[in-house]
């Protein structure tokens, strides 16, 4: 779940930056998830590790702790080359990511309305 207070703090309290990051996150998280799935299918543990690492970086900014942990697990599986454990961990990451992406979409809608009012 998105921690809006910490996310605001991580963005220096700037609503314009928050909005820009939120829009970027929807695009970037989809890209990294796709990279993780492709790497998993191709048996490329290092590529999976790298994509999970990048995804984790973005999730940290949103202070989405359970999603961060899920990405970290995938990263570790890639690092340890234990691809047999990947499907379950990636499945969990997808669920966490779906939740956070919904939260981010709501945030964008709220911030966009707030912006158009001001």
């Amino acid at each position: 779940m998105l921690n809006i207070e910490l996310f605001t703090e991580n963005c220096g309290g700037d609503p314009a930056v928050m909005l820009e990051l939120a829009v970027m996150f929807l695009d970037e998280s989809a890209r990294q998830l796709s990279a993780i799935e492709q790497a998993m299918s191709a048996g490329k543990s290092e590529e999976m590790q790298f994509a999970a690492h990048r995804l984790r970086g973005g999730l940290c900014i949103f202070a989405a702790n359970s999603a961060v942990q899920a990405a970290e697990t995938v990263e570790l599986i890639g690092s340890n080359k234990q691809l047999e454990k990947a499907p379950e961990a990636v499945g969990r990451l997808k669920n966490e990511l779906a939740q956070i992406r919904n939260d981010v979409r709501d945030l964008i809608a709220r911030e966009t309305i707030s912006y158009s009012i001001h």
Partner: protein
Amino acid sequence: MKYILVADDDPMTNLLITRELQKNGYGVLMAHDVVHASMTLTRSRVDVVIVDVRMPGGSAFDVIRRMKHSTRLGPIPIIAISSGMNGELAAALKRQGTDRCMKKPIDLNALLGTVMELVSQQELTIVHRSGSPKSPVYIDVGAEPKMVEQPHE
């Protein structure tokens, strides 16, 4: 204007740091991998480097090593950032010549304060010989730069 190189493959961290630095009057150069970071350092004037430990094509260690082997780039202050920053990693980075280490997500106030501190430390190491005879001269005396008054002529 002072120029900061932000080298990080994560576009979100890049954006966050860039906006904060620009708001505070710094020029920002961005690089998304080790090769691009090295090219930017070669071609542009940079006053402080902020570098992610893990990037495509290598790591912060590669960038730092190249900088420290160069007379021109060696003195430029370096801030290393990583979501996995811990005592061991920070110690290894400092042995290579990193000035500061920070954990992601970045505390923007702390980062800005660190950049300002490193920029002013760097300025103190430059001996100012222009200006009036009474203008102060800054001399680098090692870890703690001291200010001394320029003698009257």
